[in-house]
């Protein structure tokens, strides 16, 4: 249990640094950036208490906000996906989640992609809506959400495959 906590803390800071030092400056095709720091929220152990989880997600978003001078947009998006995560888990994994026996390293690939995609899309949509903060630019918001989401989903899936410690 203790090593799991340490692991989470390490992941928390590593993902923030990777996000603010590398991923915020990719600017693919002008302005498309991935936001793989949400992996912390996506892969947080399931059977933990939700209050702590939501609070940690808030802190994660807030740190990214401080580094990228964006007010509270990441914090808001992170808190929201942390809050809706159980629902999405149930939708994506079904029975496995009901039995509280979920471990991300041995879930099916397809299910995992669906789970990642839904949460990442929600996160990016809220984030860009709050960043642009003007409902008349809805096309711009959706466009940014779509491109960034694709980038983030690919990156998240790749990272989760590369770093999954699957021992049978």
């Amino acid at each position, binding site marked *: 249990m203790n090593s799991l906590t340490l692991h989470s803390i390490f992941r928390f800071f590593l993902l923030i640094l990777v996000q603010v030092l590398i991923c915020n400056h990719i600017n693919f095709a002008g302005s498309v950036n991935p936001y793989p720091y949400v992996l912390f929220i996506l892969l947080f152990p399931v059977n933990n208490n939700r209050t702590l989880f939501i609070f940690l997600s808030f802190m994660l978003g807030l740190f990214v906000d401080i580094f990228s*001078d964006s*007010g*509270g947009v990441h914090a808001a998006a992170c808190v929201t996906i942390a809050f809706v995560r159980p629902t999405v888990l149930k939708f994506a994994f079904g029975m496995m989640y009901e039995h509280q026996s979920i471990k991300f390293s041995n879930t099916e690939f397809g299910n995992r992609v669906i789970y990642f995609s839904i949460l990442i899309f929600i996160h990016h949509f809220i984030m860009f809506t709050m960043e642009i903060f003007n409902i008349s630019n809805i096309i711009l918001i959706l466009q940014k959400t779509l491109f960034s989401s694709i980038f983030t989903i690919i990156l998240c899936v790749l990272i989760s495959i590369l770093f999954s410690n699957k021992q049978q």
Partner: protein
Amino acid sequence: MQQIINFVLRNKTSLLFLLLFVISLALTIQSHSYHKSKFINSANFITGGVYEGASGISDYFGLKTQNEILVEENNRLRSQLLNSSDSTSSSYASVDSVSYNGRYKIQSAKIINNNYASSKNYLTINKGEKVGIKEDMGVITSKGIVGIIDNTSNGYARILSILNTKSRINAQLKSSNHIGSLIWNGKSSQKVQLNDISKFAPVKEGDTIVTGGQSSIFPQGIPIGVIDEFVLDVSGDTYTVEINLFNDMTNLSHVYVIENLDAEEIKRLENPIDE
């Protein structure tokens, strides 16, 4: 009473979510109103330190280009110095920058964090209050303007980039004195827009736009860019001008911070008794 406590305990996750969401919403709204994002910004000890460490490494990759830019600027200044007609002597000794007592004080600084892809871009530099950098000072490079300092800490300062939809800078045509305000529509990092140019102004494609002398932040005549295209407004009274920037905002390293020594006096004169 018991029921209220029970209600709170039962819904503590939702309540916590609501609380945190409202907090972040408040922070976002605060960051959207000009001159108020005091609380969450990258000009602080921790983020400044991280960015400075990272830029210490990544700076090595741009050394060659930066050197060329500096040599180019030196070249231009040198030729200005040697060819100036009104100077009484051409010896270098007479040009003593320390005893310079004009209206403006200039300091060099280095960008340690550059953003240009979102709609609200900020930059961070490695100098702060310790060396006298304050809010509302202008920031330029050898090629053109960069932005205005909007937040400072002891060792770092944050710049509100001209590539920020909140930015409003006074600008004018180089050929005449028609002024307008420089804004950004958030679309391209090479282009900014100039609003409110009178329809009587002699606007031509390819004309140079410079900073106007109406604000106490920038000196008059700092280059901004050239006119790409222009259209008459719907009302028919003013032009909206599309400008190609001289500066490559995606590749900035060394900048100059300009302090207007008379800014206080001008401000005092313009708003005599506010309270």
